[in-house]
């Protein structure tokens, strides 16, 4: 397990050094505060965005990279842009188009909360390595079995993706090209084969673990508790966001 996964970028900033369990809790609570903030107070979302911007800079994530990672929400933006057309209520004219005022507010709220929430998720994933996240989830009392399943999943993702790639190359080197629905049976056969291989690998892994003395628990890394100072640093973010949301509501 290399500890490098999809979004992780090694670094030594304050955000990288905070224990994972602190970051997980802080991110979750902060996003909850964002979700709870009233939509009509645009300034409060400006404040959220500014704080997130400072955090991104602190973590040393290049803005372009951040922007690319935000692209995951594009299909969802399409949905949000439809809202002013289909929502009910009073209408207003924008460039000659009758748009629902409530729909416009809804679209704004969806885009704003989803973007701030996604940015925080990306920050979390970019500054926390895989073993740290698993240790953090265990410290947060997530059932050990669930953490074990997650660790197996993450550990074998590259192996299985490689298997998938070799099967695709094998198909293509025999002249196969997936053009439309008529090729589905062949692709599905690949999916079936992949299942058999994954299941059999699972059985082999289990036997190998038994051979090494597995008795139902995994030796997880030393998941030491976080000092109160780390909790204080980390939780300052949701406290700040919560205060902002409360002020905006008042």
């Amino acid at each position, binding site marked *: 397990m290399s500890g490098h996964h999809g979004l992780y970028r090694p670094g030594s900033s304050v955000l990288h050094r905070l224990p994972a369990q602190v970051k997980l809790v802080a991110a979750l609570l902060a996003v909850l505060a964002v979700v709870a903030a009233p939509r009509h107070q645009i300034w409060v979302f400006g404040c959220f965005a500014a704080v997130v911007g400072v955090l991104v800079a602190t973590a040393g994530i290049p803005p372009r990279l951040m922007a690319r990672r935000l692209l995951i929400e594009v299909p969802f933006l399409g949905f949000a842009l439809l809202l002013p057309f289909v929502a009910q209520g009073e209408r207003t004219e924008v460039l000659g188009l009758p748009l629902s005022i409530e729909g416009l507010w809804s679209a704004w709220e969806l885009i704003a909360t989803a973007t701030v929430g996604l940015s925080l998720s990306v920050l979390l994933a970019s500054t926390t390595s895989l073993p740290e996240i698993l240790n953090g989830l265990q410290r947060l009392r997530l059932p050990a079995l669930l953490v074990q399943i997650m660790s197996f999943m993450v550990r074998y993702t590259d192996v299985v993706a490689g298997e998938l790639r070799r099967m695709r190359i094998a198909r293509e080197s025999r002249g196969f090209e997936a053009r439309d629905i008529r090729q589905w049976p062949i692709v599905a056969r690949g999916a079936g084969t992949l299942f058999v291989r994954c*299941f059999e690998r699972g059985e082999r892994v289990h036997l190998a673990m038994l051979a090494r003395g597995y008795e139902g628990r995994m030796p997880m890394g030393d998941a030491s508790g976080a000092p109160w100072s780390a909790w204080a640093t980390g939780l300052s973010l949701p406290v700040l966001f919560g205060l902002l949301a409360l002020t905006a509501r008042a």
Partner: protein
Amino acid sequence: MHAPDGFVNAPTSIAAGVVAAAGIAVCLRKAREELDDRTAPLAGLVAVYVFAAQMLNFPVAGGTSGHLLGGTLAAVLVGPFTGALCVSVVLLVQAVLFADGGLTALGLNISTMALATVLIGYPLARFLLRVRIPLAVSSGIAAGVSVVGASLTFVLFYALGGTTEVALGTVTAAMVGVHALIGIGEGLITALTVGAIAATRPDLIHLNRSLAPTPVEV
């Protein structure tokens, strides 16, 4: 598609989180009964499988393509509890490691895409198989229906705490309409995949085993 943050309000997000946590707790206990101490490696590898199968592109036409969601497929292959558990783990990993799906929407996503899908798909597949419809066809129909059913569960959460002012009827019609199409694709892919596995390793398919007469103990 994974729901992002802010689709439903904070209380509904938390309520969905509680539903998801309770569901996962039940699945963990039952999966351990299904798999014993093989649970961690096998469920882990099945979760990888679901994750990888979602990366397989099924071309539709004109350069567009769809992919598997895999809830009912997983339940048919490894059993309902392990299946729901594996899909939940996939959603959890996608949210925490890949920022796919909002952190506060995780409960909502697990409740609809993992729990509701399996809760609808597995009993239906079992019923269809029992009335002598072939395994692959049963799984395919159940998978298609479960996608539409899961979208209705989403509408239910939306009715409880949606943040937008779109009429419930419009949302329901749009969700069911889109997911009927997705469901047809999901059903076809599931049927073909189950058929392919049944042709080589029928013994691996949980639904096959669960209906077979139990061997007499000697």
